[in-house]
């Protein structure tokens, strides 16, 4: 039996947990200790054995303390044309002195917002890593957008990560968007060095009545970064939430994205691209819960896999008995560029209502040879032709990014990757 499936792997983290949110932490700790890390054969983590990966790569199961981040560090990662607020994190700790203050929004560290009902959206009993984070996170960020506030400029969350004193980083973010508010977040993590570390991240988002929240995410960390993230969202009547997740690098990455549609006429969109090479392993587990009538969800994930990379997609859609007139769409398409690349894709629909429109589809294939020949027959070299076709494939997802500077940046990153040797 692997030592890591035992509950005591993270014991020192649990023992040294901060005193904030004590009652919530105590409960989460109990939940975690009862569950333990997912075992090798556990269905939810069948293709992504985080425990095994941690065992081979992580030596110090202690919190990586915050380290000094400079203004130059921040400037070096701001992409062209970005005009918005920047919130900076060092190993998960929010650094107000290096961050800007978005106008009209409450931003503080979580320890200063002790009434926050942490764990009420990302419920600890749903996932052991989520429970572990709740029991032992150091500090995190609290964001509240007031009612009717339209935040014009995007808010960039930059996380600088580096293993120094320990190798475990546990960011935690709580976002509440008030009724009729609008806000866009861009979540970008940076590896400061190539040293291995483990990020166990939790983001809870609550979208009030008629709110519009965009959450864009760029995962382009070092080839030694191991990450599990739980992003869970509750949205209410007439609201809209859109997630666009771009995974370009890492060692092993597992994203649990959950969307609870709790009010009628709400709309949830989950989009993603994973563009992988080397031995990168990216697993997107998404979960949409239609609990009420007249809500809509759209999901589109596209994967391009080269070398020995591996992609996993699991899309759960629940349509509860009361959720009549639901529209739920899901699609996952993959292109394998090498014989050694692997994709496991699994749609999982559970429909209890009888008057709904649901569709799903997944494909795994190679580049279209006929299209490739057509481009070559017009004088375009093979690399450029391949790049054009792959970019066209991924472009459908990138178009979903409404924030212009981030969309351009994402496009340039992906084109650069597709245009080079890949």
């Amino acid at each position: 039996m692997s030592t890591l499936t035992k509950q005591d792997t993270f014991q020192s983290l649990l023992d040294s947990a901060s005193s904030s949110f004590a009652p919530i932490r105590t409960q989460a700790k109990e939940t975690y200790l009862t569950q333990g890390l997912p075992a090798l054969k556990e269905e939810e983590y069948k293709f992504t054995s985080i425990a095994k990966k941690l065992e081979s790569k992580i030596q110090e199961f202690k919190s990586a303390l915050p380290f000094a981040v400079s203004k130059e560090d921040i400037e070096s990662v701001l992409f062209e044309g970005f005009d918005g607020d920047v919130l900076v994190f060092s190993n998960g700790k929010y650094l107000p002195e290096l961050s800007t203050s978005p106008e009209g929004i409450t931003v503080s560290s979580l320890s200063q917002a002790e009434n926050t009902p942490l764990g009420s959206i990302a419920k600890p009993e749903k996932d052991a890593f989520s429970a572990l984070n709740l029991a032992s996170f150091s500090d995190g960020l609290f964001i509240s957008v007031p009612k009717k506030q339209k935040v014009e400029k995007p808010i960039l969350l930059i996380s600088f990560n580096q293993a120094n004193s320990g190798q475990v980083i546990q960011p935690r973010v709580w976002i509440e968007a008030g009724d009729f508010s609008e806000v866009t977040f861009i979540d970008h993590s940076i590896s400061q060095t190539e040293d291995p570390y483990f990020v166990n991240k939790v983001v809870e988002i609550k979208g009030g009545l008629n709110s519009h929240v965009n959450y864009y995410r760029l995962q382009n960390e070092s080839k030694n970064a191991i990450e599990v993230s739980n992003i869970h969202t509750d949205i209410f009547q007439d609201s809209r939430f859109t997630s666009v997740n771009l995974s370009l690098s890492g060692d092993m990455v597992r994203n649990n994205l959950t969307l609870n549609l709790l009010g009628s006429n709400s709309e949830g969109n989950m989009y993603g691209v994973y563009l992988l090479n080397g031995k990168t392993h990216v697993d997107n587990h998404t979960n949409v819960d239609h609990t009420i009538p007249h809500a809509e969800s759209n999901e589109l994930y596209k994967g391009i896999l080269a070398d020995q990379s591996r992609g996993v997609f699991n899309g759960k859609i629940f349509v509860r008995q009361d959720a009549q007139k639901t529209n739920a769409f899901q699609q996952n398409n993959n292109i394998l560029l090498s014989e050694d690349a692997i994709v496991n894709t699994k749609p999982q629909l559970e429909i209890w209502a009888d008057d709904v429109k649901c569709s799903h589809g997944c494909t795994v294939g190679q580049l279209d040879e006929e299209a490739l020949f057509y481009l070559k027959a017009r004088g375009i070299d093979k690399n450029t032709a391949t790049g054009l076709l792959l970019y066209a494939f991924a472009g459908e997802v990138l178009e979903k990014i409404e924030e212009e500077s981030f969309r351009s940046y994402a496009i340039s990153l992906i084109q650069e990757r597709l245009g080079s040797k890949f």
Partner: protein
Amino acid sequence: MLSIKNLHASVEGTPILRGINLEVKAGEVHAIMGPNGSGKSTLASVLAGREEYEVTEGEVIFQGKELLEMAPEDRAREGVFLAFQYPVEIPGVSSTNFLRTALNQVREYRGQEPLDAVKFLTLMKEKMKLVEIDQKLLSRSLNEGFSGGEKKRNEIFQMAMLEPTLSILDETDSGLDIDALRIVSNGVNKLKSDKTATIVVTHYQRLLDYIVPDFVHVLYKGRIVKSGTKDLALELEEKGYDWIKEEVDSATAV
């Protein structure tokens, strides 16, 4: 310009071309006709460099160079253009971006400066008139949702942009109504010069009323079994292919 000598090609071990000989000079239009399955499209594909065909014997010299040694993109850059029988729909790749990429790679190969956006658009507008193609079509993804006629017109438009020396039209007439046929043929005729040559692959004589060939060749069982002038095409239209088949089959039986 083009010299095909004893060309043999097969697909997955099945011989399709069994010794083609053909000389094409600048300024000429050659029509390749023949019954279904005779190897017409295979010949066009082999010349363009489609990879599923294996050339087992023979050689093709294009302007002094071994054509068969070149990658498909280099053949295009050297001046060979294949108008596809079934142009491919490519969602997500805009027609404009595709053409500009193609044209600039071709220009680079020929030692010409790349065209900037303005010059490219000017050239595009000029060539669009040739085939009466609507700008709206070109702002869409390449061939996506185009009608059959629009796809064929787009092929000739691409030909106009890339200015090839040798154009091979693979059943460009199939599926076209009379109006579209006239537009496409007009485009081809305007692009002809005494420095370029055209090979028209077709099943029917109809197209040859518009694009008048200097030579007509009949392909049967992978060989050119009869050559003549445009009158041969008219004779074929009238009598069908059976008399040629009989002639050839009885000759080989002896």
